[in-house]
């Protein structure tokens, strides 16, 4: 994206630069930040409203109906205003500095994780090679928020909540990591964009349906993800019937709402991660996005070209839009919608579970993790590994419309294979001959598509 702004800058000031300047990066960074903060904050707004509506329906109620007209869709906003207006209380026994900092730690962590989460092919704030790992690492930091809050509140119930949170989240990171490794193993990359693109085509290409083991792993992942974001039936850290409100017992007003924004933020984050890792990311169940985008671009492209032509009178000739870019971006937009829908479905399932099931006890939560989730995840991992090593048939081989996942393997695999094959004297044809017809990783390497972040520059050198 920085390149894009540099282009604009250059065309405006009639300059030419090889790499984007500071201003371009700054603008790009600000736009990314604003977009992500809207995903988190507006997302929380919508999800809280959804939670109210869904829980209402589950419980034979209507939920909010008044604020904002039909369906009470402004209810959360009204609540937000109420929360802002509330008195901000710091208990006498609290460690004031930590007490005040704790909500922001959680919010910041939840927010940071979005940096690496792609919303569509290449639509990501920071296209990271190790996005999966980064998201897991940042999610691990989020646990500090309840711990610090509970410890700093100076209340025994808060402390109990913090201790439970620490024990629970640290334990659930183990099976969660194991589950996340499986798609990475199948795809041979930690790059979320690549993993998502490898599932292009019909839903049979989704990794959850790759083989029976990946489906098990997908289920375990969702369970562990629910636990790691502290949702019922694993919401022990704030168990209202036992610990009053757990770690946020002493919080009020805006600080309290930050915990909730972080919670809903991470809910969507883990759901989105599930969508990318197991459920095709931004690819719909039926590959119709590209044809539709192709048709739409027939209309949009001339319009854009005309716009460029008009603007060109002012800032100088801008030329034509690159062939195919419009179609790709429309497909991306549809992919983004797809992704948002999938993530929202994940969040909805979490809500459904929350309003249906009783809460587990702390020892049962740990048992679920250590005695069930970890072995099942390990079993799924091994099974998927064996499946992959022995080249057993996957749903990906089914004769359906779509592309073969392994046509888009990441290049380093080829490099390593080349190295190994040539040294072992393998006479098989060079992998270069099988150069994939479609390589989103390369495609995303092009300057138009990759929204580069502020700090690390120059996309793929290849």
């Amino acid at each position: 994206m920085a390149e894009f702004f540099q282009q604009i800058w250059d065309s405006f000031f009639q300059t030419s630069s090889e790499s984007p300047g500071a201003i371009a990066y700054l603008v790009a960074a600000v736009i990314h930040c604003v977009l992500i903060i809207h995903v988190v904050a507006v997302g929380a707004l919508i999800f809280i409203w959804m939670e109210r509506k869904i829980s209402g329906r589950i419980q034979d109620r209507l939920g909010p109906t008044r604020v904002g007209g039909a369906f009470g869709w402004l209810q959360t906003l009204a609540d937000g205003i109420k929360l802002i207006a509330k008195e901000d209380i710091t208990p006498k026994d609290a460690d004031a500095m930590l007490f005040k900092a704790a909500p922001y730690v959680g919010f910041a962590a939840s927010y940071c994780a979005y940096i690496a989460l792609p919303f569509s092919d290449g639509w990501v704030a920071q296209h990271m090679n190790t996005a999966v790992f980064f998201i897991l690492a940042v999610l691990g930091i989020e646990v500090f928020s309840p711990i610090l809050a509970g410890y700093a509140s100076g209340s025994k119930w808060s402390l109990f909540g913090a201790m439970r949170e620490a024990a629970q989240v640290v334990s659930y990171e183990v099976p969660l990591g194991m589950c996340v490794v499986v798609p990475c193993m199948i795809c041979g990359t930690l790059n979320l964009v690549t993993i998502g693109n490898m599932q292009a085509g019909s839903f049979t290409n989704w990794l959850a349906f790759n083989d029976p083991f990946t489906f098990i792993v997908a289920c375990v992942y969702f369970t562990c993800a629910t636990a790691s974001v502290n949702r019922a039936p694993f919401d022990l850290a704030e168990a209202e019937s036992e610990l009053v409100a757990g770690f946020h017992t002493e919080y009020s007003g805006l600080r309290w709402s930050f915990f909730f924004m972080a919670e809903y933020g991470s809910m969507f984050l883990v759901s989105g991660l599930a969508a990318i890792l197991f459920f095709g990311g931004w690819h719909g169940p039926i590959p119709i996005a590209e044809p539709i985008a192709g048709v739409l671009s027939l209309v949009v492209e001339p319009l854009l070209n005309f716009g460029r032509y008009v603007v060109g009178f002012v800032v100088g000739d801008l030329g034509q839009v690159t062939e195919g870019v419009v179609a790709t971006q429309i497909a991306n937009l549809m992919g983004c919608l797809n992704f948002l829908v999938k993530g929202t479905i994940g969040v909805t399932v979490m809500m459904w579970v929350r309003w249906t099931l009783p809460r587990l006890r702390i020892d049962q939560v740990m048992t679920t993790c250590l005695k069930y989730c970890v072995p099942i995840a390990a079993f799924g991992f091994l099974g998927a590994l064996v499946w992959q090593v022995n080249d057993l048939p996957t749903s990906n081989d089914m004769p359906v419309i779509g592309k073969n996942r392994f046509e888009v393997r990441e290049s380093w695999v080829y490099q390593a294979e080349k190295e190994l094959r040539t040294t072992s004297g393998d006479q098989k044809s060079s992998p270069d001959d099988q150069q994939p017809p479609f390589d989103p990783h390369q495609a995303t390497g092009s300057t138009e598509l990759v929204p580069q972040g502020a700090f690390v520059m120059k996309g793929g050198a290849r």
Partner: protein
Amino acid sequence: MATQVDDARIIEFDVRTDEMLVNMGPQHPSTHGVLRLVLRTDGEIVSEVEPHLGYLHRCAEKIGENLTPRQWIPYTDRMDYLAGMNMNLGWSLCVEKLIDHQLSEKAKHLRVIIAEMGRIASHLVGMGAYGLDLGTFSPFLYAFREREKILDLFEEACGARLTYSYLTPGGATADLPNGWLQKCEAFLDQFEPIIPEYHALLTTNAIFVKRTAGIGVMSGEMAVDFGCTGPVLRGSGVDYDLRRDGEERYTEMYDGYAFEVISQKDGHYPKDHDYPAVPAEAVLGDCWHRFYVRMLEVVQAIDLVRQAIDRYSTASGDWGVPIKLAHKLPKGEVYLETESPRGQMGFYLVSDGNAIPWRVRARSSCFCNLSVTSDLCRGCLIADVPAIVGSLDVVMGEIDR
């Protein structure tokens, strides 16, 4: 409240460093009102629980010494405010026993209808609130949705939704309005198919079973020793129900009614209905059984109301006229217990021959049921404390009186 007490046994005053003393209540989401439990915890494990009562003490017994029995009826409503009808019934029967008042058949059947409907309404709250204690909110609203319908019926009968003062010594304040019985039957027909829903959400739910089965196990002997009554006693497998085993003045209300006492006999519960199976993890006398007995009593109460409606519509006599407001009581003292939803509710009435009793005493079922908390909660986890206290289904208004 700064208290100066030299008694070393009071728990707040000896704090050990490696343990934590936590106040659960009186302001706490799962203490059913204003119960205060002082927990001595080592991490998540509770080593000692000390209940502190009295936050809702309203001197009901002292007030009873200044009012006539009929004037005191509203105070009985406010003891067990979730089953006001059954409290009215207990007090009315006690006063009738003293003045030796005989009721007509019709009035008796009316009382059965009302008391059993009250039992359903009360157990619905017990069920929903127990779900709340275990962290699930939806069953609570499902329960209240049905309870509201019962309250609508009660409102039609007596004009009140919570504190009814409907059953009085001598009968009831009014007859059931026209069409009430049909509405009541319609409610039962609609309500009965909903019960499997509750079983699916709670009774047979895997997490619910995990949270309750084998928790807070109380043997039958222990239950009797602590004076536990009602579903708490029967959940421990003791076959004792005042509707069958009580005093004649009370049991004659149920004469000729077909019902089985809900308790596990010879390893199984009554098989008069299609109840869900007892899970393998459940131990007799644990939280799950106490809950299960309550759920089964709801079905039983539906049956009883149906029978009572049939009898009421054909019975002779009138619905009973209340005694005079200042009815002069004969000298003497009586004690009578009835089977209220939470256990045996006893009233002790001492009269010196005036219209105003010399002494009124209410034997609270929850008071006794709650007294086992310390013994049941020893060594359990913090999360089990609400599970155990919730399974006793206490109402603080009745405990503190």
